[in-house]
Protein backbone atom coordinates (compact mmCIF):
# COMPACT_ATOMS: atom_id res chain seq x y z
CA UNK A 1 0.00 0.00 0.00
CA UNK A 2 1.01 3.57 -0.44
CA UNK A 3 2.07 5.68 2.47
CA UNK A 4 -0.02 8.72 1.65
CA UNK A 5 -3.23 9.20 3.56
CA UNK A 6 -6.36 8.65 1.59
CA UNK A 7 -8.29 11.91 1.77
CA UNK A 8 -11.63 10.33 1.05
CA UNK A 9 -11.18 8.08 4.09
CA UNK A 10 -10.36 10.94 6.33
CA UNK A 11 -13.46 12.87 5.49
CA UNK A 12 -15.63 9.81 5.87
CA UNK A 13 -18.68 10.54 8.01
CA UNK A 14 -18.13 7.59 10.36
CA UNK A 15 -14.56 8.53 11.01
CA UNK A 16 -15.47 12.14 11.70
CA UNK A 17 -18.35 11.12 13.96
CA UNK A 18 -16.21 8.71 15.96
CA UNK A 19 -13.45 11.24 16.42
CA UNK A 20 -15.96 13.95 17.35
CA UNK A 21 -17.54 11.70 19.99
CA UNK A 22 -14.14 10.86 21.43
CA UNK A 23 -13.21 14.54 21.49
CA UNK A 24 -16.45 15.51 23.24
CA UNK A 25 -15.85 12.82 25.85
CA UNK A 26 -12.32 14.01 26.50
CA UNK A 27 -13.54 17.59 26.77
CA UNK A 28 -16.34 16.78 29.22
CA UNK A 29 -13.84 14.94 31.40
CA UNK A 30 -12.31 18.33 32.13
CA UNK A 31 -15.39 19.39 34.08
CA UNK A 32 -14.89 17.30 37.25
CA UNK A 33 -11.22 18.19 37.26
CA UNK A 34 -12.05 21.89 37.25
CA UNK A 35 -14.89 21.52 39.75
CA UNK A 36 -12.76 19.72 42.31
CA UNK A 37 -10.87 22.94 43.01
CA UNK A 38 -14.02 24.82 44.02
CA UNK A 39 -14.99 25.10 47.71
CA UNK A 40 -16.10 21.66 48.86
CA UNK A 41 -19.17 20.62 50.82
CA UNK A 42 -17.51 21.01 54.20
CA UNK A 43 -16.28 24.51 53.38
CA UNK A 44 -19.74 25.55 52.22
CA UNK A 45 -21.30 24.16 55.38
CA UNK A 46 -19.06 26.34 57.52
CA UNK A 47 -20.30 29.45 55.76
CA UNK A 48 -22.09 30.93 58.79
CA UNK A 49 -20.66 31.96 62.15
CA UNK A 50 -22.41 33.16 65.28
CA UNK A 51 -20.81 35.88 67.39
CA UNK A 52 -21.65 36.91 70.93
CA UNK A 53 -21.44 40.71 71.21
CA UNK A 54 -22.13 41.00 74.95
CA UNK A 55 -18.49 41.32 76.04
CA UNK A 56 -17.70 44.09 73.53
CA UNK A 57 -17.99 47.42 75.35
CA UNK A 58 -18.54 50.77 73.72
CA UNK A 59 -15.43 51.86 71.87
CA UNK A 60 -14.07 48.31 71.70
CA UNK A 61 -13.73 46.08 68.69
CA UNK A 62 -13.27 42.39 68.03
CA UNK A 63 -12.07 40.50 65.01
CA UNK A 64 -13.56 37.13 64.19
CA UNK A 65 -12.98 34.61 61.44
CA UNK A 66 -15.64 34.01 58.84
CA UNK A 67 -14.85 31.83 55.78
CA UNK A 68 -11.20 32.28 56.65
CA UNK A 69 -11.45 36.06 56.49
CA UNK A 70 -11.19 38.51 59.38
CA UNK A 71 -14.46 40.29 60.15
CA UNK A 72 -14.25 43.56 62.07
CA UNK A 73 -16.97 44.15 64.63
CA UNK A 74 -16.79 47.52 66.40
CA UNK A 75 -19.07 48.87 69.06
CA UNK A 76 -18.79 52.52 68.04
CA UNK A 77 -19.00 55.44 70.44
CA UNK A 78 -21.75 58.02 69.98
CA UNK A 79 -19.21 60.49 68.58
CA UNK A 80 -17.96 57.97 66.04
CA UNK A 81 -21.51 57.27 64.90
CA UNK A 82 -22.21 60.98 64.70
CA UNK A 83 -19.17 61.71 62.54
CA UNK A 84 -20.03 58.81 60.29
CA UNK A 85 -23.61 60.00 59.83
CA UNK A 86 -22.61 63.60 59.11
CA UNK A 87 -20.41 62.76 56.12
CA UNK A 88 -21.91 63.86 52.79
CA UNK A 89 -22.02 61.33 49.99
CA UNK A 90 -20.18 63.73 47.69
CA UNK A 91 -17.16 63.57 50.00
CA UNK A 92 -16.82 59.84 49.40
CA UNK A 93 -14.60 58.34 46.69
CA UNK A 94 -16.93 55.32 46.63
CA UNK A 95 -20.59 56.20 46.95
CA UNK A 96 -21.95 52.65 47.14
CA UNK A 97 -22.83 51.01 50.43
CA UNK A 98 -21.08 47.69 49.60
CA UNK A 99 -23.53 45.91 51.84
CA UNK A 100 -24.02 42.23 50.95
CA UNK A 101 -27.64 42.38 52.15
CA UNK A 102 -28.60 45.39 50.00
CA UNK A 103 -28.74 45.78 46.22
CA UNK A 104 -25.88 47.39 44.35
CA UNK A 105 -25.89 51.14 43.88
CA UNK A 106 -27.35 51.72 47.36
CA UNK A 107 -25.84 54.98 48.60
CA UNK A 108 -23.08 54.63 51.15
CA UNK A 109 -24.81 56.31 54.06
CA UNK A 110 -23.92 55.08 57.51
CA UNK A 111 -27.47 53.77 57.89
CA UNK A 112 -27.06 51.58 54.84
CA UNK A 113 -23.94 50.02 56.31
CA UNK A 114 -25.46 49.15 59.68
CA UNK A 115 -28.65 47.52 60.96
CA UNK A 116 -31.58 49.58 62.10
CA UNK A 117 -31.78 49.71 65.87
CA UNK A 118 -28.17 48.60 66.17
CA UNK A 119 -26.50 51.64 64.63
CA UNK A 120 -23.60 51.54 67.07
CA UNK A 121 -22.44 48.22 65.59
CA UNK A 122 -20.43 48.17 62.41
CA UNK A 123 -19.63 44.73 60.95
CA UNK A 124 -17.29 44.54 57.96
CA UNK A 125 -14.88 42.19 56.24
CA UNK A 126 -11.53 43.51 57.44
CA UNK A 127 -9.73 43.26 54.14
CA UNK A 128 -8.47 46.37 52.40
CA UNK A 129 -10.15 46.70 49.02
CA UNK A 130 -6.85 47.72 47.47
CA UNK A 131 -4.70 44.58 47.57
CA UNK A 132 -6.05 42.53 50.43
CA UNK A 133 -4.03 43.63 53.49
CA UNK A 134 -5.69 43.84 56.87
CA UNK A 135 -6.14 47.48 57.99
CA UNK A 136 -5.09 48.68 61.45
CA UNK A 137 -7.60 50.21 63.84
CA UNK A 138 -9.13 47.32 65.76
CA UNK A 139 -6.92 47.61 68.80
CA UNK A 140 -6.95 50.62 71.14
CA UNK A 141 -3.45 51.81 70.35
CA UNK A 142 -3.55 51.15 66.62
CA UNK A 143 -3.15 53.99 64.16
CA UNK A 144 -6.69 54.67 63.02
CA UNK A 145 -5.87 56.95 60.12
CA UNK A 146 -6.90 60.51 59.34
CA UNK A 147 -10.60 59.76 59.75
CA UNK A 148 -10.58 57.87 63.04
CA UNK A 149 -11.64 54.58 61.53
CA UNK A 150 -9.08 52.18 60.06
CA UNK A 151 -5.78 52.64 58.32
CA UNK A 152 -4.14 50.21 55.96
CA UNK A 153 -0.37 50.39 56.40
CA UNK A 154 0.45 48.57 53.17
CA UNK A 155 -0.28 51.43 50.81
CA UNK A 156 -1.82 54.09 53.03
CA UNK A 157 -5.58 53.78 52.67
CA UNK A 158 -7.64 55.68 55.23
CA UNK A 159 -11.14 54.46 56.19
CA UNK A 160 -13.63 56.42 58.31
CA UNK A 161 -15.63 55.18 61.29
CA UNK A 162 -18.15 53.63 58.91
CA UNK A 163 -15.40 51.74 57.09
CA UNK A 164 -15.68 53.89 53.97
CA UNK A 165 -12.59 54.73 51.97
CA UNK A 166 -11.69 58.38 52.28
CA UNK A 167 -8.10 58.71 51.20
CA UNK A 168 -5.51 56.47 49.56
CA UNK A 169 -5.42 53.93 46.74
CA UNK A 170 -8.24 51.59 47.85
CA UNK A 171 -11.09 51.75 45.32
CA UNK A 172 -14.04 50.62 47.45
CA UNK A 173 -15.49 50.83 50.93
CA UNK A 174 -14.88 47.87 53.23
CA UNK A 175 -17.41 45.18 52.43
CA UNK A 176 -20.30 44.53 54.81
CA UNK A 177 -21.01 40.78 54.90
CA UNK A 178 -24.56 39.46 55.05
CA UNK A 179 -25.44 39.13 58.74
CA UNK A 180 -28.39 39.38 61.07
CA UNK A 181 -29.06 40.03 64.73
CA UNK A 182 -30.25 36.75 66.22
CA UNK A 183 -30.80 38.54 69.52
CA UNK A 184 -29.76 41.92 70.89
CA UNK A 185 -26.29 40.68 71.73
CA UNK A 186 -25.75 38.01 69.12
CA UNK A 187 -25.19 38.16 65.36
CA UNK A 188 -25.01 35.46 62.76
CA UNK A 189 -22.69 36.17 59.84
CA UNK A 190 -23.35 34.47 56.52
Amino acid sequence: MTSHVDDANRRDFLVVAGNAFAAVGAASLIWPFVQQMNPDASAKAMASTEVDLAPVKEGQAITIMWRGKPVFVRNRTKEEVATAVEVKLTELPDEEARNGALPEATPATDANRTKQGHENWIVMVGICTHLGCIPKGQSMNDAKGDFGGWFCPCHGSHYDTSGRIRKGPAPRNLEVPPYEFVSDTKIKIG
Partner: protein
Amino acid sequence: MTTMKRRLTSTLVAASAAALLASSPATASSEAHGPEITRQQWSFGGFRGQYDQAQLQRGFQIYKEVCSACHGLSRVYFRNLVQPGGPGFPEESVKALAAEWPNQITDGPNDEGQMFERPARLADPIRGPYKNEKEARAAQNGAYPPDLSLIAKARGVERNPSWWTHPFLMLGDIFASYQEGGADYLTALMTGYVDPPADVKVNDGMYYNTAFPGHQLAMPSPLSADAVPYSDGTKTTVENYAKDVSAFLSWAADPTLDQRKRMGWQVMLYLFVTTVLLYLGKRRVWSKIKH
Protein backbone atom coordinates in the same frame (compact mmCIF):
# COMPACT_ATOMS: atom_id res chain seq x y z
CA MET B 1 0.68 11.69 69.53
CA THR B 2 2.87 9.69 67.22
CA THR B 3 2.21 6.05 66.64
CA MET B 4 5.53 5.24 68.27
CA LYS B 5 4.70 6.97 71.50
CA ARG B 6 1.35 5.29 71.51
CA ARG B 7 3.08 2.01 71.11
CA LEU B 8 5.49 2.62 73.95
CA THR B 9 3.01 4.01 76.41
CA SER B 10 0.38 1.37 76.03
CA THR B 11 2.11 -1.95 76.18
CA LEU B 12 -0.57 -2.97 78.60
CA VAL B 13 -3.30 -2.28 76.09
CA ALA B 14 -1.32 -4.18 73.50
CA ALA B 15 -1.08 -7.20 75.73
CA SER B 16 -4.77 -7.22 76.50
CA ALA B 17 -5.61 -6.60 72.86
CA ALA B 18 -3.47 -9.55 71.89
CA ALA B 19 -5.25 -11.69 74.42
CA LEU B 20 -8.59 -10.56 73.06
CA LEU B 21 -7.52 -11.22 69.49
CA ALA B 22 -6.35 -14.68 70.28
CA SER B 23 -9.81 -15.48 71.50
CA SER B 24 -11.82 -13.76 68.80
CA PRO B 25 -11.55 -12.59 65.18
CA ALA B 26 -8.06 -13.84 64.42
CA THR B 27 -9.16 -17.40 64.88
CA ALA B 28 -11.58 -17.02 62.01
CA SER B 29 -8.99 -17.67 59.33
CA SER B 30 -7.88 -20.90 60.91
CA GLU B 31 -11.38 -22.28 60.56
CA ALA B 32 -11.79 -24.26 57.40
CA HIS B 33 -14.77 -22.16 56.37
CA GLY B 34 -15.92 -18.81 57.62
CA PRO B 35 -19.55 -18.46 58.56
CA GLU B 36 -21.87 -18.44 55.57
CA ILE B 37 -23.49 -15.05 55.05
CA THR B 38 -26.77 -14.91 53.18
CA ARG B 39 -26.97 -12.41 50.36
CA GLN B 40 -29.92 -10.07 50.81
CA GLN B 41 -31.90 -8.11 48.27
CA TRP B 42 -30.95 -4.46 48.49
CA SER B 43 -32.60 -1.54 46.73
CA PHE B 44 -29.09 -0.17 46.19
CA GLY B 45 -27.63 -3.49 45.08
CA GLY B 46 -26.14 -4.36 41.71
CA PHE B 47 -25.42 -1.91 38.95
CA ARG B 48 -28.86 -0.31 38.81
CA GLY B 49 -29.70 -0.03 42.48
CA GLN B 50 -30.29 3.24 44.29
CA TYR B 51 -30.96 3.93 47.96
CA ASP B 52 -34.53 3.72 49.18
CA GLN B 53 -35.04 7.03 50.97
CA ALA B 54 -37.74 5.68 53.29
CA GLN B 55 -35.48 2.80 54.28
CA LEU B 56 -32.58 5.16 55.00
CA GLN B 57 -34.89 7.24 57.19
CA ARG B 58 -36.01 4.18 59.12
CA GLY B 59 -32.39 3.04 59.36
CA PHE B 60 -31.35 6.37 60.80
CA GLN B 61 -34.13 6.03 63.35
CA ILE B 62 -32.66 2.69 64.45
CA TYR B 63 -29.18 4.17 64.60
CA LYS B 64 -30.44 7.09 66.67
CA GLU B 65 -32.52 5.09 69.09
CA VAL B 66 -30.36 1.98 69.43
CA CYS B 67 -26.81 2.13 68.05
CA SER B 68 -25.98 5.69 69.05
CA ALA B 69 -26.04 4.67 72.68
CA CYS B 70 -22.55 3.25 72.15
CA HIS B 71 -21.43 3.93 68.56
CA GLY B 72 -20.45 7.19 66.93
CA LEU B 73 -20.99 8.12 63.28
CA SER B 74 -18.34 10.76 63.19
CA ARG B 75 -17.58 10.90 59.47
CA VAL B 76 -21.22 11.70 58.77
CA TYR B 77 -22.28 15.27 59.39
CA PHE B 78 -25.78 16.42 60.25
CA ARG B 79 -25.84 18.32 56.97
CA ASN B 80 -25.41 14.97 55.15
CA LEU B 81 -28.81 13.87 56.46
CA VAL B 82 -30.36 16.67 54.40
CA GLN B 83 -28.52 16.23 51.11
CA PRO B 84 -30.00 14.41 48.11
CA GLY B 85 -29.06 10.76 47.71
CA GLY B 86 -29.38 10.21 51.45
CA PRO B 87 -32.20 10.04 54.00
CA GLY B 88 -33.20 13.51 52.77
CA PHE B 89 -34.75 14.77 56.00
CA PRO B 90 -36.05 18.36 55.89
CA GLU B 91 -33.37 20.85 56.90
CA GLU B 92 -35.36 22.32 59.80
CA SER B 93 -35.91 18.97 61.49
CA VAL B 94 -32.23 18.08 61.16
CA LYS B 95 -31.28 21.42 62.71
CA ALA B 96 -33.54 20.61 65.65
CA LEU B 97 -32.14 17.07 65.80
CA ALA B 98 -28.58 18.41 65.88
CA ALA B 99 -29.40 20.91 68.60
CA GLU B 100 -30.88 18.13 70.75
CA TRP B 101 -28.21 15.52 69.99
CA PRO B 102 -27.03 14.31 73.40
CA ASN B 103 -23.35 14.10 72.46
CA GLN B 104 -22.41 17.71 72.17
CA ILE B 105 -19.51 19.25 70.34
CA THR B 106 -16.42 20.32 72.22
CA ASP B 107 -15.54 23.83 71.13
CA GLY B 108 -13.34 26.60 72.33
CA PRO B 109 -11.32 27.87 73.92
CA ASN B 110 -13.67 30.67 74.95
CA ASP B 111 -12.53 34.07 76.16
CA GLU B 112 -11.65 32.60 79.54
CA GLY B 113 -9.48 30.01 77.85
CA GLN B 114 -11.77 27.11 78.67
CA MET B 115 -13.02 24.42 76.30
CA PHE B 116 -16.78 24.11 76.41
CA GLU B 117 -19.58 21.93 75.09
CA ARG B 118 -22.13 23.36 72.74
CA PRO B 119 -25.09 21.90 70.88
CA ALA B 120 -24.30 20.47 67.44
CA ARG B 121 -25.09 22.36 64.26
CA LEU B 122 -25.60 21.21 60.68
CA ALA B 123 -21.88 21.45 59.97
CA ASP B 124 -20.94 19.21 62.91
CA PRO B 125 -20.29 15.46 62.91
CA ILE B 126 -22.71 12.98 64.47
CA ARG B 127 -20.77 12.21 67.61
CA GLY B 128 -20.97 9.06 69.68
CA PRO B 129 -21.12 9.08 73.48
CA TYR B 130 -17.38 8.65 74.06
CA LYS B 131 -14.66 11.22 73.60
CA ASN B 132 -12.02 8.65 72.71
CA GLU B 133 -11.20 4.98 72.64
CA LYS B 134 -9.95 4.88 76.23
CA GLU B 135 -13.17 6.34 77.57
CA ALA B 136 -15.18 3.87 75.50
CA ARG B 137 -13.21 0.89 76.75
CA ALA B 138 -13.47 2.06 80.32
CA ALA B 139 -17.24 2.29 80.01
CA GLN B 140 -17.67 -0.92 78.05
CA ASN B 141 -15.71 -3.44 80.09
CA GLY B 142 -12.69 -3.17 77.82
CA ALA B 143 -14.60 -3.58 74.56
CA TYR B 144 -14.48 -0.83 71.99
CA PRO B 145 -17.64 -0.03 70.04
CA PRO B 146 -16.19 1.10 66.71
CA ASP B 147 -17.34 4.18 64.87
CA LEU B 148 -19.97 3.11 62.35
CA SER B 149 -19.34 5.66 59.56
CA LEU B 150 -17.38 3.18 57.47
CA ILE B 151 -18.43 -0.11 58.96
CA ALA B 152 -20.36 -1.18 55.86
CA LYS B 153 -17.23 -0.78 53.75
CA ALA B 154 -14.84 -2.11 56.38
CA ARG B 155 -16.66 -5.43 56.58
CA GLY B 156 -17.14 -7.88 53.78
CA VAL B 157 -18.18 -11.37 53.04
CA GLU B 158 -15.38 -13.79 52.42
CA ARG B 159 -16.32 -16.77 50.37
CA ASN B 160 -14.35 -19.95 50.31
CA PRO B 161 -15.31 -21.69 47.09
CA SER B 162 -13.23 -24.48 45.63
CA TRP B 163 -10.39 -23.24 43.44
CA TRP B 164 -12.08 -24.15 40.17
CA THR B 165 -15.36 -22.35 40.90
CA HIS B 166 -13.57 -19.31 42.29
CA PRO B 167 -12.89 -17.55 38.95
CA PHE B 168 -16.48 -18.04 37.81
CA LEU B 169 -17.92 -16.68 41.04
CA MET B 170 -15.59 -13.70 40.69
CA LEU B 171 -16.73 -13.07 37.13
CA GLY B 172 -20.34 -13.41 38.26
CA ASP B 173 -19.80 -10.78 40.96
CA ILE B 174 -18.10 -8.48 38.48
CA PHE B 175 -20.95 -8.76 35.98
CA ALA B 176 -23.60 -8.35 38.66
CA SER B 177 -21.53 -5.58 40.27
CA TYR B 178 -21.83 -7.03 43.77
CA GLN B 179 -20.69 -4.50 46.36
CA GLU B 180 -23.09 -5.21 49.22
CA GLY B 181 -20.97 -7.61 51.27
CA GLY B 182 -20.84 -5.15 54.14
CA ALA B 183 -24.61 -4.76 54.34
CA ASP B 184 -25.10 -8.51 54.08
CA TYR B 185 -22.63 -9.08 56.89
CA LEU B 186 -24.19 -6.45 59.15
CA THR B 187 -27.67 -7.90 58.66
CA ALA B 188 -26.38 -11.38 59.37
CA LEU B 189 -24.58 -10.10 62.46
CA MET B 190 -27.61 -8.36 63.91
CA THR B 191 -29.88 -11.31 63.29
CA GLY B 192 -27.20 -13.87 64.16
CA TYR B 193 -27.57 -14.05 67.95
CA VAL B 194 -28.50 -17.60 68.90
CA ASP B 195 -27.90 -19.88 71.85
CA PRO B 196 -24.39 -21.32 71.62
CA PRO B 197 -23.97 -24.97 70.64
CA ALA B 198 -23.51 -27.28 73.59
CA ASP B 199 -19.75 -27.78 73.02
CA VAL B 200 -18.96 -24.04 72.97
CA LYS B 201 -18.12 -22.24 76.16
CA VAL B 202 -18.95 -18.55 75.82
CA ASN B 203 -16.55 -16.34 77.72
CA ASP B 204 -17.65 -13.91 80.39
CA GLY B 205 -19.21 -10.76 78.94
CA MET B 206 -19.28 -12.27 75.46
CA TYR B 207 -22.23 -13.25 73.32
CA TYR B 208 -22.56 -15.99 70.75
CA ASN B 209 -23.20 -14.92 67.15
CA THR B 210 -23.27 -17.05 64.02
CA ALA B 211 -22.01 -14.33 61.67
CA PHE B 212 -19.16 -12.91 63.76
CA PRO B 213 -15.72 -14.35 62.97
CA GLY B 214 -14.89 -16.50 65.97
CA HIS B 215 -18.55 -16.38 67.03
CA GLN B 216 -17.97 -14.54 70.31
CA LEU B 217 -18.39 -10.81 70.53
CA ALA B 218 -18.79 -8.29 73.28
CA MET B 219 -21.89 -6.62 71.85
CA PRO B 220 -25.15 -8.05 73.17
CA SER B 221 -27.98 -8.47 70.67
CA PRO B 222 -28.91 -4.85 69.97
CA LEU B 223 -32.31 -5.30 68.35
CA SER B 224 -35.56 -6.69 69.67
CA ALA B 225 -38.93 -6.72 67.96
CA ASP B 226 -41.21 -3.69 68.41
CA ALA B 227 -38.50 -1.76 70.29
CA VAL B 228 -38.60 1.14 67.83
CA PRO B 229 -41.96 2.27 66.44
CA TYR B 230 -42.12 2.86 62.68
CA SER B 231 -44.47 5.50 61.35
CA ASP B 232 -44.70 4.24 57.76
CA GLY B 233 -46.36 0.90 58.46
CA THR B 234 -43.22 -1.23 58.00
CA LYS B 235 -43.39 -4.29 60.28
CA THR B 236 -41.28 -3.78 63.38
CA THR B 237 -39.41 -7.07 63.26
CA VAL B 238 -35.78 -7.63 64.13
CA GLU B 239 -35.12 -8.58 60.53
CA ASN B 240 -36.56 -5.32 59.20
CA TYR B 241 -34.65 -3.33 61.79
CA ALA B 242 -31.44 -5.10 60.84
CA LYS B 243 -31.94 -4.53 57.12
CA ASP B 244 -32.94 -0.90 57.53
CA VAL B 245 -29.98 0.01 59.69
CA SER B 246 -27.63 -1.94 57.38
CA ALA B 247 -28.96 0.08 54.47
CA PHE B 248 -28.49 3.30 56.41
CA LEU B 249 -24.92 2.35 57.35
CA SER B 250 -24.22 1.49 53.70
CA TRP B 251 -25.26 5.01 52.82
CA ALA B 252 -23.16 6.41 55.67
CA ALA B 253 -20.12 4.63 54.24
CA ASP B 254 -20.87 5.44 50.61
CA PRO B 255 -23.00 8.60 50.40
CA THR B 256 -22.30 9.26 46.71
CA LEU B 257 -23.62 5.90 45.45
CA ASP B 258 -26.76 7.29 43.79
CA GLN B 259 -24.84 9.97 41.92
CA ARG B 260 -22.07 7.54 41.04
CA LYS B 261 -24.37 4.97 39.44
CA ARG B 262 -26.49 7.55 37.65
CA MET B 263 -23.40 9.12 36.12
CA GLY B 264 -22.03 5.64 35.50
CA TRP B 265 -24.86 4.79 33.14
CA GLN B 266 -24.39 7.97 31.17
CA VAL B 267 -20.69 7.23 30.85
CA MET B 268 -21.29 3.60 29.85
CA LEU B 269 -23.79 4.61 27.18
CA TYR B 270 -21.36 7.18 25.83
CA LEU B 271 -18.50 4.68 25.81
CA PHE B 272 -20.53 1.99 24.01
CA VAL B 273 -21.72 4.36 21.29
CA THR B 274 -18.28 5.88 20.82
CA THR B 275 -16.55 2.51 20.73
CA VAL B 276 -18.94 1.27 18.05
CA LEU B 277 -18.51 4.45 16.02
CA LEU B 278 -14.75 4.31 16.32
CA TYR B 279 -14.78 0.66 15.32
CA LEU B 280 -16.84 1.39 12.22
CA GLY B 281 -14.55 4.31 11.43
CA LYS B 282 -11.52 2.06 11.83
CA ARG B 283 -13.05 -0.47 9.43
CA ARG B 284 -13.62 2.28 6.93
CA VAL B 285 -10.04 3.46 7.24
CA TRP B 286 -8.71 -0.08 6.78
CA SER B 287 -11.22 -1.05 4.08
CA LYS B 288 -8.75 -0.50 1.27
CA ILE B 289 -6.06 -2.61 2.92
CA LYS B 290 -6.17 -6.34 3.27
CA HIS B 291 -5.01 -7.31 6.69
